[in-house]
């Protein structure tokens, strides 16, 4: 079947959705997605961020679809023509959706550990309005402790239900879901019961915002001060691939996540033992630096190439300065870790 998105054509299998076809083409025309997750069955159709305009239904029925369609749940038809980035209607609709998503989202990015790798930040940067028109009070929930590994911030949740699907599909029995309705809708109190499972940590990775964050990494560092490396280990947990990204600061592993692709979806899910219990560099075989999109803040101050020291045949004091000046004078409380092999 031939589909045309923003003037670019591609042949796809029957049953492919517009979003999947757009991702096959790649580039600017890929609609943003907050709830759709290609690794989770049945995800999508909730956030309405991926709205596209179908200007020609199919070869058999060339009428345009009257309303904007959610591309993650709309299947492709032969000869379909879709406008994504090129349509003003779509841009306008995405702007409104972003505004709706931000209505109850607290603007605490300076505090939030997800800042820098947050899908909602990216979405509002691209489609959002810098000024909020919302003058009412944002809805808040009582903070809830859901165990030693995962930190829940219900206020930040945008109800994409990805974490519910993770519990549904990766673990045996799901014990949390969306409770209440409308403004009060929240991921249920039984979320704490799902935390015991060996794969519960993947909820952190699939969460597009900072509602579920790593408690072992809480406030430790900002993501852009860490250097991400691809690493792997022999993991004995059944179903875990052991391939991860470790986020290092100096010679210390600050956190471990799954490897996320360009759409911020993990390539393979990892177990809790990899994620939370193995923070020792000796546990991991480090493959090399993980690369991110060119404009990602994670690339700030990072060098993906190993920089060799320039050797010049001259006096040592000219190259290195005096020995007494080369000691660490800042952060006196924190000892310097000398086993940093990657710097």
């Amino acid at each position, binding site marked *: 079947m031939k589909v045309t998105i923003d003037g670019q054509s591609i042949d796809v299998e029957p049953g492919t959705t517009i979003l999947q076809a757009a991702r096959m083409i790649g580039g600017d025309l890929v609609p943003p997605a907050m709830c759709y997750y290609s690794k989770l069955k049945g995800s999508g159709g909730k956030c309405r961020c991926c709205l596209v305009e179908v200007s020609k239904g199919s070869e058999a029925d060339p009428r345009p679809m009257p309303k904007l369609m959610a591309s993650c749940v709309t299947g492709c038809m032969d000869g379909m023509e879709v406008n994504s980035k090129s349509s003003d209607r779509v841009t306008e609709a995405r702007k409104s959706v972003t505004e709706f998503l931000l209505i109850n989202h607290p603007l*605490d990015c*300076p505090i939030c550990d997800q800042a820098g790798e947050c899908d909602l930040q990216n979405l509002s940067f691209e489609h959002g309005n810098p000024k909020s028109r919302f003058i009412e009070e944002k809805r808040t929930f009582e903070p809830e402790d859901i165990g030693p590994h995962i930190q829940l911030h219900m206020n930040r949740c945008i109800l994409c239900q990805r974490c519910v699907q993770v519990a549904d599909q990766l673990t045996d029995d799901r014990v949390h879901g969306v409770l209440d309705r409308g403004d009060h809708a929240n991921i249920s109190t039984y979320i704490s019961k799902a935390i015991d499972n060996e794969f519960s940590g993947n909820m952190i990775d699939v969460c597009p915002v900072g509602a579920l964050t790593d408690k072992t990494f*809480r406030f430790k560092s*900002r993501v*852009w*001060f860490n250097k991400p490396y691809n690493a792997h280990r022999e993991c004995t947990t059944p179903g875990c691939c052991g391939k991860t990204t470790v986020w290092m600061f100096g010679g210390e592993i600050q956190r471990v996540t799954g490897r996320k692709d360009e759409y911020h979806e993990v390539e393979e899910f990892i177990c809790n033992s990899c994620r939370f219990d193995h923070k020792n560099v000796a546990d991991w075989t480090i493959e090399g630096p993980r690369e991110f999109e060119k404009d990602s803040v994670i690339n*700030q101050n990072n060098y993906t190439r190993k920089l060799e020291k320039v050797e010049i045949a001259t006096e040592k004091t000219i190259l290195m300065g005096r020995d007494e000046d080369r000691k660490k*004078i800042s952060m006196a409380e924190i000892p310097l870790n000398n086993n940093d092999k990657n710097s």
Partner: protein
Amino acid sequence: MSIETISLSGRKKVVSNKEMSFLERLYLVAIVKGLYITIKHLFKRKATIHYPEQVRERSDVYRGQHMLKRDEQGRENCTACGLCALSCPAEAITMKAEERKANEKHLYREEKYASIYEINMLRCIFCGLCEEACPKDAIYLTTSKVLVPSSYEREDFIFGKDKLVMPLDMAMKNAQLKNAN
């Protein structure tokens, strides 16, 4: 005109090396001329001041020593978001974040605060990008109105929170001013 004689600045002078006359070789005229210039400057206004006893008037946007602000209730604004350190072109800022305890709500405005906040004044170039990056109105280079003092020890230039955070009485004065208006 050849390239040797051309003067792009218009100030080029050809130096002559001619033999001096007897009067010139005495240097008396030249000494008197030089002394005249020296004595003339004794009666002019001085170009220097006695810093730090005297301080020159500064512009409102003068960038001096940083100050980490407190809000009207005396709580620290800084939440250790790291944007100042990220924007710093000289990499002068380091910090360590900590979670606020339940009994510290009067000290810090947000859930997270900087337990260590250090600026290396030897590295700082006073460009003000940290001030520009700050989303919480926390760091300012214009409020302290002081220059970073000089010192002999390198350690003295690591300014921690003890030197950077706004004094409490200044925060109280600000709050009173705000209430009065």
